[in-house]
Structures are given as structure tokens and as C-alpha cells.
């Protein structure tokens, strides 16, 4: 059984592009950003379904076939 640290190290290695983006960066800032992003309100409801494309939100007929 791997320790949590070993498991995370292996996962990091598997995700090489993301790992490379840590080089030379202010890792604390990345941690803060991720922590903030984790604060997305929990509106989860199985009936909410997947996301819509942004133009699907709007039901107005915007195509003018005459043009």
C-alpha cells in the first residue's frame, strides 16, 4: 500500500504537463487559486443535468434567413 505522499507523487508523475507547470511558479498562489475555485456553490442536483452551451441558454430566434 502506498503512502498518501507516494500516491500523490505517482499521480503527479502521471500528469507530467501539470507537474511541469509548477516549475518556477509561486506554488502558494496556485494553491490559493485552486482553493478559491473549490468554493463553487454546491448546486448539485441530479435533475440539473449536464451543462448547456452558452447559446442554448437563450431562446430568442436570432437567425435571419432572409439575409
Amino acid at each position, binding site marked *: 500500500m502506498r503512502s498518501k505522499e507516494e500516491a500523490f507523487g505517482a499521480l503527479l508523475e502521471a500528469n507530467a504537463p*501539470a507537474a511541469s507547470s509548477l516549475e518556477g511558479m509561486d506554488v502558494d498562489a496556485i494553491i490559493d487559486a485552486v482553493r478559491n*475555485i473549490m468554493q463553487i456553490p454546491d448546486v*448539485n442536483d441530479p435533475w440539473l*443535468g449536464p451543462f448547456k452551451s452558452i447559446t442554448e*441558454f*437563450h431562446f430568442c430566434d436570432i437567425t435571419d434567413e432572409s439575409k
Partner: protein
Amino acid sequence: MNTNFLPLKDAKEMLRKREILSRELVDACLDQIEKYNGKLNAFIRVYLEQARERADYLDRMRARNNDYGLLFGIPVAVKDLFEIKGQPCTCGDKSRRYGPISEKTAPAVKALEDAGAIVVGSTNMHEWAFGGTSENPYYGYVNNTWGPDNISGGSSGGSAVALSAGMCFAALGTDTGGSVRIPASCTGTSALKVTAGITDGYGAYPLSWTMDTVCPMARTVEDLADPFLAICKPGIKIPAASRREDSLKGLRVGINEEYFLNPDLMQKEVYTVVKKAIESMEKAGVSLVPVHIPHIGEAQPAHQAILFSESAAVYSGELREWRKNMSPEVSQFLAFGDWVPAVNYINALRFRNVLHEEFAEAFSKVDIIVSPGISFVSPPHGKTNVEGSGENDLSLILDGAITFDFPANLIGTPALCQPCGFSADGLPVGLQLMGPAYSEMMLLDIGNCLEKEFHWYRHPQPYYDPSA
């Protein structure tokens, strides 16, 4: 006669009546750029010869009564994020100063040209559009016409300053979280963030495919209509304004004191000026209607999850190499995106559905929702935070600058930003009018009424005035 600050409609009328040539308008803009660009850093490249040649060509066309298009013979500027055939497109990045050379012109720029516009140059910007100050370390800080030591806002800062300094009559910018509205607020100009999908973003370097919008900018709201209509995608039918054009009476203005008019989220001076503007609107006959948007105060993490993830995806794979040439600030933002869990990105997109429904409910009761354009007045260069009236400072890096702007990007609705007064130091304060999807003509109509009624717009007084 000084033509640099003519209203667009007057310039068009003078051209139509043959009282002036396009060449004269272009020469006046180029002279202004020659005089002041060294101080303002509004332009990265200026197209002297091409602009003059095109103006002469259009003047010949007009002499043969072959004039057409909404912007026939009008000088415009475009953010250096748009590809123009035969030119580099720097995106504000030092390594792209001389190339690669674009093989095509972006459709939005082509649309302006098809409407008869003359592109005089490509404007300076926040590096890769990833920020709201336009303090570009490579092409110079874009300085504000209202105070040369102050920021212009960004990321489309060069376009706003070019307008404010009389270097063009209309401009193109892009907006993913406020990038035309922040500089409009800082420079006392006007900008229209459009409904998602109605303008063509191809050939403009992306930050976020689902939130980027190509937007018109102009000195006044009245001047915005022509460039807006010119860049709408072919086949798009924009609903006409559904209200009377000459009056504010009966307009239902949404007031959201929990967020969009929460004094703790902005500088006191901004709150005072915007509040006064709203009181003036009430005296002119609008109805103020409280609106509640339950999740608005928690929405910014969703915007950031989408922005960071999508921008990291843009600059991944082979394009990951480009990150090596970017400043540490921009690379860091992209690194954020590498670490957003996919689950959060998807839930951010799902949250967008919820927020959209909440706004739709609000817009069933009101015509528009008002807020400041940004939470602060243009600060001096070099700051990362400014003092707010709440407990915390307002960050200029992301959250503080885009507090009132990002919701329109998150849900894809339009928002107009126009000046509504000045701070005690004489710096402009912007007002944002948000409307439901495809309400651009209504927003322009309302903004135009406000402009005529209250005369909030004025030219910058500082030494950039050529008559000074």
C-alpha cells in the same frame, strides 16, 4: 477645424456631404498618434501608408458615388489580439513583435473593413489579455488620458485610450471578464460587451472559448451602434429596441443592493457617483425595482474555474511551448488552470445554468440591472491593490477589477458601460447597464438617452487636447 473628437455621426455626415475627405480624418488621427503615442503607448503598430492609401481609395469611391457601409471612410483601431493579414499579432507578448505574420484577417476586422472602416493601427493591451491594467512590460504601460500616471484599465486599454485621445473614432476589443468595460470605465469612454456568439471570435487569440466576446468600443454610446452592427455575424437578426427612443420614463431599472450596488464591494467615491447617477435616473422617470439574484455573491469561483481551465487548454499540447515566452504573471494564471479539477470545471458550467436562470427571473421583472463599471477609479500605475470601503482591499489583478463585469461573461448576456460622472480628482467613473440576451439595441437606446439627458461624457481635459 479639429476633427479628432467629432461624434461619429457628424464625421459620417461631413463625409457624405463632401465637406471633408476620409484622407483628412485619417491624417488627423495619424497626427494625433504621432504626437501622443509616445506618452500614452496606445498603439503597438500604426499602419501609416496602408491607412492613407485606403483613405484615398475610399475618397475616390465616394467621388463616384460608390460609398456604402456603416463606417465608410471612418478611422478605427483594433486590439493587437486580432490577426490582420500581412502583420504580426503580438497579443502583447514580447516574442511576437515581428512574427509570425498573419495569413488571414480576423472576420471581425474584415467586417469593419467591409463596412468601409480604415484600420489605422493595432492597439496595446494587457499581455495575452490576461489582466485588467494594460501595464504591458514590453510595449509600455498604457497611460490614461485623464492622468498619465494612472492605469488605462484592460485588457483592451490601448483601444480605450486611442478613443479617448482622439486617435480613432471606434475600436475593437475583446471581453472575457470585463476587458472592454474596465478600460471604458477608467478612460470615460463607452463599450458594449455583446451577447455570446453574435460576433465572430475567429482570428482573435482566445482566453476562454465559452466566455470570450469581440466587442465594439467608442467615445460615446451614440457612436457604438455603427461598429456594433458592423461586426455582428452575417445572418444575425438583432431585435430592435422595444421601447421609446426619446424617454427614460417607464424604464424598469433593477437594483441589487446585495451585490451590484453593495458599498462594501467598491470604493466609496464610486458608490457615491453611481448612486447619484441612479437618483438622477429616478428623477427622469425610471422605476427602481429591487432584484434578488440568490447565488451572485458566490459566482466568481465558477468564472475563474472556466477561465483558467479553458485558457490552460488553449495553451496546452504544442502551444504549451508558448508559455515559456510569457511573463511569470501570465504563466502563473495558466498554471492555475492546469490544476483545476475537471469535476470543478464541469460543475462551474452547470452552476452557470443555475445563475442564468436566476438572472432570467430578475430580467422578467426589470429591463436592466445597474452597477458600477468597476469597483474603483483608475489608480496610479504599479499597484496590485487599492483601498476599498469594505474590510478588504480591492485586488486589481483579477477579482476586484472584474467584480461587476464577470457575471455577464459567465451567463453570456450583454452589458453596456458608459461614464456617469467623475471622482473628486477628476477621474471618470463608469456605469454598467446589464440586459437580457440580445438586448444590445435596447441597451444602446437607454445609454443614448442617459447620455443626452445627463451629459456625463466629456473629453479629457489634460494636455493631450491638441488645442492646449
